[in-house]
C-alpha cells in the first residue's frame, strides 16, 4: 500500500479500522449456546430456569397457565427455594396483565404482580420459602390473567419470558404478607406503609450473614399519580429498592436487594411516596 494511496484514502481506511475493532468489542450473542431450559448445579446449589420462546396471551378465563410455563424438578434434601419469573411483553392495545407463581400445586399470593393499562410492560415477581423434600418432584408453574390479547417472542432484545427457581442449603426465611386494604395519603416525602413491617431475627451460628430481601406490591391505583415504594432496613434507606409507577390504573412494584445482617433483631419497613392526586386519603384495595 503506497503512501499516496493511504493519504488519499485516510478517512475511509480509518473508518474500516474503527469498524473492525468495533466489531471485535461488540458483545456477541450467548456463544455458549446456553439452553433455553437451563439446569445447572454446583454441590449444594441447583438452578432450574426456563426461557419460553413464544407466548400468546388470551383473554378467555381468569388465571390460566402460561403456555409452556411449567417445570418439575427433584429436591432430595431440605432447601431454601428462590422462585421467580420475568416477563417483558407486548399486548395488542393498552391492557392489564397479571402473573403469579403456582409452586408445588399451591398458589403463592405474594408472587402476584399486575400492570396496566399499558401495551409494552415488564413484570417480575418472586418468592422464597424453606422446602422439605417429598417423594414427588416439585413443580413451578406461572399463571396469567390478561384483559387484552398479546404475547411475546423472546428475542434477546425487547421481549423475554423467563421463570424458574434456585435451591440452596436451608437458612432463615422471614415473611410478612398483607391482604388488607391499605390507606395512603398524598406525600412528597417517604412515609412508612402502615402495618407493613418485617422483623428478621438473625440468630443462627454465624455472627453475620447475607440476606436477600424483597417486596411485592400490586394494586389498583385508581387515581393519576406517581407512586414510589422502597424498603428501609433499621434506620438505613435501601434506595436501590425504589420502584416508581403511576399514571396507570394497576401498578406492580417488586424489588430485591442483598444486605448483611449482624446477630440480633432487624426491622425492614416498607415506605411509599405519592405525588399527584389530591390531599385526601386513598384506600387501595390489595388485589392479591
Amino acid at each position: 500500500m503506497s503512501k499516496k494511496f493511504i493519504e488519499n484514502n485516510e478517512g475511509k481506511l480509518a473508518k474500516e479500522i474503527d469498524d473492525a475493532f468495533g466489531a471485535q468489542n461488540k458483545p456477541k450473542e450467548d456463544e455458549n449456546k446456553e439452553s433455553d431450559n437451563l439446569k445447572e448445579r454446583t454441590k449444594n446449589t441447583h438452578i432450574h430456569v426456563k426461557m419460553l420462546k413464544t407466548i400468546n396471551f388470551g383473554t378467555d378465563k381468569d388465571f390460566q397457565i402460561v403456555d409452556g410455563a411449567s417445570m418439575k424438578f427433584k429436591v432430595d434434601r431440605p432447601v431454601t427455594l428462590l422462585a421467580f419469573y420475568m416477563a417483558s411483553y407486548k399486548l395488542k392495545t393498552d391492557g392489564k396483565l397479571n402473573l403469579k407463581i403456582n409452586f408445588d400445586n399451591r398458589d403463592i399470593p405474594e408472587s402476584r404482580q399486575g400492570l396496566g393499562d399499558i401495551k409494552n410492560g415488564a413484570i417480575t415477581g418472586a418468592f422464597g420459602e424453606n422446602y422439605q423434600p417429598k417423594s414427588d418432584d416439585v413443580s413451578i408453574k406461572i399463571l396469567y390473567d390478561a384483559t387484552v390479547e398479546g404475547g411475546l417472542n423472546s428475542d434477546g432484545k425487547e421481549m423475554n419470558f423467563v421463570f424458574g427457581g434456585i435451591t440452596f442449603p436451608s437458612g432463615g426465611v422471614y415473611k410478612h404478607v398483607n391482604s388488607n386494604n391499605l390507606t395512603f395519603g398524598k406525600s412528597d416525602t417517604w412515609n412508612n406503609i402502615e402495618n407493613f413491617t418485617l422483623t428478621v431475627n438473625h440468630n443462627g451460628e454465624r455472627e453475620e450473614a447475607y440476606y436477600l430481601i424483597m417486596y411485592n406490591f400490586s394494586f389498583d391505583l385508581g387515581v393519576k399519580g406517581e407512586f414510589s415504594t422502597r424498603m428501609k432496613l433499621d434506620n438505613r434507606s435501601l434506595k436501590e429498592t425504589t420502584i416508581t409507577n403511576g399514571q396507570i390504573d394497576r401498578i406492580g412494584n417488586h424489588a430485591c436487594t442483598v444486605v448483611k445482617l449482624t446477630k440480633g433483631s432487624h426491622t425492614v419497613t416498607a415506605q411509599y411516596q405519592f405525588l399527584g392526586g389530591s390531599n385526601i386519603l386513598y384506600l387501595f384495595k390489595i388485589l392479591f
Partner: protein
Amino acid sequence: MTAIELPKSSIVNSYDVDKPMSLNSDNEWKPFNLNASLNLMETKTVLFLITYNIRVDNSQFSARLVLENKIKKKSVTSVEGLKFASSQAYVAKVLKKGHYSIDIQFNSNSSNTFSPDLRSDSEKSHVKLHVIELE
C-alpha cells in the same frame, strides 16, 4: 416482604451507575460502564440481581446483562409508556474458574439524562447490580 438467608459461603459484590449518562442510545445497545468483574478460583453458582428505576417519560427502555462480552438473553427486561422504566431481573448461572467482566447494557430512545445522586435520600433514579457468589 420476604427475607431469605443466603448460604454461609456467599460472597456479594455490588455496583451502582454513579455517573450521568444520556439515555438516547440511537437504537443501539449502550453500556452503563459499571466496571464490574468477577474472579472465580473455582466453579461457582452465581446469582446476578439487576434493579433499575429510571425516569424516561414514556419512552422505550430495555436492559440486559453482558457477561464476558456475551449477551445473557435471559436477562432482558423492557418497558415503554411509563414515566419511570423500572424492573428487577434475576439471572443465575454456574460459572467456571476464571475472570469475567460484567456490564449492563441499555437501549432507549428517551431524550432524558440519567443523573443519579447516590447521596440524596429523595433521589428515585438508580441502577444497581448485585453479584452473588452462592457456592
